[in-house]
């Protein structure tokens, strides 16, 4: 980096031949040449630092952009969408004057290098995105994926990640209401740590990341800037792990949840007094991102004096200050006459706040250090005009072979006894087992509005105490399905999250996604990505749920081995009155169990094929989005009109997994009858999509059947809630005690 003399803009112009470390900063040669072209001279060290982080894969979406456009082009008409893709997070109208913002992000690479801090700062980052929209965060969710449950390194990574999420989220006072925990060997060297957050505000309180109004002050507030997280976005999150390179541990940020909690409170107080013109959180690419995005989204330019940034380490160079990803910092644009009041509020919460610059009427972003101008750029070239790649992609040569290795042809249990053993093995397998050892390390109750939390189908939060208005959020993804067919796999992830929201009685409104894939430089991975995005965009269009924002995480691979393509989809729904919510647990003995939807022989990518045969091949379950929509309408109507007392969606593990979970949660068993036309194995273990099992009070039986019949949804009576065992007539009986031991013992035995 630059030493003496100070590498000012003037100095750069005078010394065109100075070699800069663009390759070490993660830039490609053509990208560096592009910068030379934009500036008409060589960049200063500080400018190079800014371009390198902002043009990284993580910040610029340079490989994914051309595909992500479909989310906008195919977006369904939705009156609910108040703010779409491009801001810190999308905003959705949920009625009664309320708006909800939500988003899912990844913190995969840092969490492998340093599980606790990686996961903790993942929570911190997504929460700041939500605050930056003007909302009070009301809940978090964490979709997690790890290597094999019994692999020794999983015991290093998982407890650290879980403790980090808990340690950070619990200290912020945000209930953790959902998410997933999935194990698969493909994530061994590359766990997926995704974090989602939901926030609530009134319509009039929506804030955007833009700096307008010449003379307005730019205030940096929150933690001091330190040397942590330098290159987090460019070096760590945008490259493949490689043993030959030096440790990337210093690129992981270190979190302080207490500071973040103060930041939340003081930001919300400033919003309440209408002191803020524009706001941006400092996450990936730190000040480089905040200044260039605020300036390029607003109407003017910006002048910043870097000497005024409060530092944790006075020896930091200007380049390091611009690249630092120190956590718990925000940047606000405030009118001059409101600056004093803004600083007063920060002082009340003991939050350090400093005016570091102002909005100018030009169109340049100018940054000064020790009196010299070290950055003079058009902020749009930093924030928005990064390179865009049309990466080559091609259907991998092995895809056909994988799909023709049909899971439906695997040997099935020959006897009732064998079927029983396989069911018990499935219920106890790490992916199907109870995750309460993990989720009990998260606070579900704080804020006093949690209506449903994991292991419910979706988390649900009340947002208005008077009317009972609430929102539901579910996240789902199935990398095995997506590996077999990325187009269908992405649609199945959406369908499951959509179904999970509807199962609890809420109406699905909008989508956020976290797209986790391998290296975009591998045409096979790029094909998976392109197919998944196309599938998701098509399905969102058909279901009428627009994508409001999200995150792409690439380079999730170790050496040549990429993870399964893993699109994780979050669906947000609204429910008029949380009193009508439908839980998973069986409520009363004697209630009738109905299976909604069609069951086919579909075992490709299934839990059964994984647990019993360690097999991945064939095709994933068929997608029928019209059926998903009809099923959702029925579930919502039945919930609203009091026709069902419990409901559970069917997904991995099939019907028997759903019934066992409802039985264990309710402490009530079930007697099941195999319906005509189905064999017991298919009935219990097929993973056909578009299905749910519901418990109907006898008094509602006729009404419920009439509703399903009138609307053309196949409905099959399959049994009754009864006793203290799950009995499949003519096949086997498993007592709740046996099931509980199997279901709840696995995870503590492996990880505690």
């Amino acid at each position, binding site marked *: 980096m630059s030493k003496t003399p100070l590498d000012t803009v003037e100095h750069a112009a005078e010394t065109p031949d100075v070699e800069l470390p663009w390759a070490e900063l993660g830039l490609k040669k053509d990208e560096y040449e592009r910068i030379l072209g934009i500036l008409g001279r060589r960049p200063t060290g500080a400018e190079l630092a800014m371009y390198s982080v902002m043009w990284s894969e993580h910040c610029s979406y340079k490989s994914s952009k051309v595909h992500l456009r479909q989310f906008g082009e195919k977006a369904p008409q939705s009156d609910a969408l108040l703010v779409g893709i491009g801001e810190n997070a999308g905003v959705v109208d949920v009625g009664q004057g309320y708006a909800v913002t939500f988003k899912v992000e990844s913190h995969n690479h840092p969490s492998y290098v340093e599980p606790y801090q990686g996961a903790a700062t993942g929570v911190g980052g997504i929460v700041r995105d939500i605050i930056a929209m003007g909302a009070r965060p009301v809940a978090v969710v964490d979709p997690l994926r790890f290597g094999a449950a019994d692999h020794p390194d999983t015991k290093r990574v998982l407890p650290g990640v879980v*403790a980090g999420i*808990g*340690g950070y989220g*619990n*200290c*912020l*006072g945000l209930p953790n209401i959902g998410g997933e925990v999935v194990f698969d060997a493909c994530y061994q060297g590359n766990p997926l740590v995704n974090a989602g957050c939901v926030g609530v505000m009134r319509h009039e309180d929506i804030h955007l990341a833009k700096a307008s109004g010449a003379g307005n002050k730019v205030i940096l507030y929150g933690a001091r800037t330190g040397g942590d997280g330098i290159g987090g976005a460019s070096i760590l999150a945008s490259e493949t792990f490689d043993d030959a390179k030096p440790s990337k541990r210093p690129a992981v940020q270190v979190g*302080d*949840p*207490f*500071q973040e*909690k*103060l930041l939340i409170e003081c930001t919300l107080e400033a919003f309440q007094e209408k002191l803020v013109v524009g706001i941006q959180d400092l996450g990936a690419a730190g000040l480089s991102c905040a200044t260039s995005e605020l300036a390029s989204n607003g109407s003017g330019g910006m002048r910043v004096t870097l000497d005024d940034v409060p530092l944790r380490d006075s020896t930091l160079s200007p380049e390091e200050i611009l690249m630092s990803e120190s956590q718990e910092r925000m940047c606000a644009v405030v009118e001059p006459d409101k600056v004093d009041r803004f600083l007063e509020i920060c002082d009340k*919460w*003991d939050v350090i706040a400093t005016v570091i610059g102002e909005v100018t009427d030009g169109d340049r972003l100018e940054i000064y250090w020790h009196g010299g101008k070290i950055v003079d750029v058009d902020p749009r070239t930093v924030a928005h005009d990064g390179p865009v790649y049309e990466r080559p992609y091609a259907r991998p040569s092995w895809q056909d072979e994988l799909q023709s290795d049909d899971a439906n042809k695997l040997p099935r249990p020959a006897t009732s006894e064998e079927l029983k053993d396989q069911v018990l093995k499935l219920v106890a397998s790490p992916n199907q087992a109870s995750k309460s050892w993990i*989720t*009990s*390390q*998260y*606070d*579900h*109750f*704080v*804020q*006093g*509005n*949690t*209506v449903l939390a994991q292991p419910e189908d979706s988390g649900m939060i*009340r947002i208005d*105490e008077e009317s009972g208005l609430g929102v539901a959020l579910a996240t789902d993804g199935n990398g095995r399905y997506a590996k077999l067919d990325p187009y269908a796999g992405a649609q199945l992830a959406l369908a499951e999250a959509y179904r999970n929201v509807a199962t609890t009685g809420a109406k699905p409104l909008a989508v956020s996604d976290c797209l986790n894939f391998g290296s975009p430089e591998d045409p096979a991975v790029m094909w998976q990505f392109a197919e998944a995005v196309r599938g998701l965009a098509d399905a969102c269009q058909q279901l009428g749920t627009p994508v409001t924002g999200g995150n792409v995480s690439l380079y999730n691979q170790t050496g040549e081995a990429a993870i399964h393509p893993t699109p994780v989809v979050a669906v947000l729904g609204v429910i008029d009155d*949380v*009193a009508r*919510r439908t839980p998973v647990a069986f409520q009363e003995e004697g209630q009738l169990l109905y299976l909604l939807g069609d069951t086919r022989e579909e075992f490709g990518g299934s839990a059964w094929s994984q647990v019993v045969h360690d097999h991945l091949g064939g095709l994933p379950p068929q997608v029928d989005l019209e059926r998903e929509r009809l099923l959702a309408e029925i579930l919502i109507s039945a919930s609203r009109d009091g026709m069902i007392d419990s409901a559970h969606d069917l997904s991995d593990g099939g019907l028997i997994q759903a019934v066992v979970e409802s039985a264990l949660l309710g402490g009530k068993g079930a007697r099941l009858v195999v319906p005509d036309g189905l064999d017991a194995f298919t009935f219990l273990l097929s993973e056909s999509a578009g299905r749910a099992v519901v418990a109907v009070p006898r008094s509602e039986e006729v009404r419920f059947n009439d509703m399903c019949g009138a609307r053309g949804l196949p409905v099959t009576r399959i049994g009754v809630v009864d006793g203290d065992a799950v009995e499949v007539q003519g096949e086997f009986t498993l007592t709740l005690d046996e099931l509980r031991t199997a279901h709840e013992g696995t995870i503590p035995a492996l990880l*505690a």
Partner: protein
Amino acid sequence: MTARIGVVTFPGSLDDRDTQRAIRIAGAEPVALWHKDKDLKQVDAVVLCGGFSYGDYLRAGAIARFSPVMETIIEQAKSGLPVLGICNGFQILTEAHLLPGAMLGNDHLHFICRDQRLRVENATTSWTSDYSEGQEIHIPLKNMDGRYVADERTLDMLEAEGRVAFRYLDFNPNGSLNDIAGITNEAGNVVGLMPHPEHAVEPLIGTGRTDGLPFFTSILKKLVTA
């Protein structure tokens, strides 16, 4: 008239709004108190709620105990002001020596969040009179440092004087001595416990039970009839 019950917000307090809501549901008037402010705004009682005051980076409650608002609370509690400490509030009360003993990290070293069954052991304090002795209730528990410890003499004294107010049933979630979930001072005006009654006041929310509401109706009845 109704009672005015103060809820202190320290930096890092998390359950202050929830506690205010519980007070409102019980029919009393919640009053927000600020950690930097010695003035208790003439409240009739005070709740120290859960959270991680000042980040709890030193020892849970160790810094909050020296805050300006605590100076007044400590002084007035000694002359009878009813004070309830929930979770971090309980930790602060032990640090302030308004209650004996101390809180250590959970014996299993993890944060734990669960619906916990408790037995009410003392239904005569300012905060527990709406329960009956021996009553079994479910209250959510969520903490990192919930292991109650005290020397043997203190434990014997607490047991002999009936000052163990709540005891964990079924499962000791943190390694607390004598399964102690909550205690009271000798006068019965200061009560501390680890579980969170403010999260069990509405039928739909949290665990769906309202077993925590009697904390707030107990104090309301005491104050209004006094």
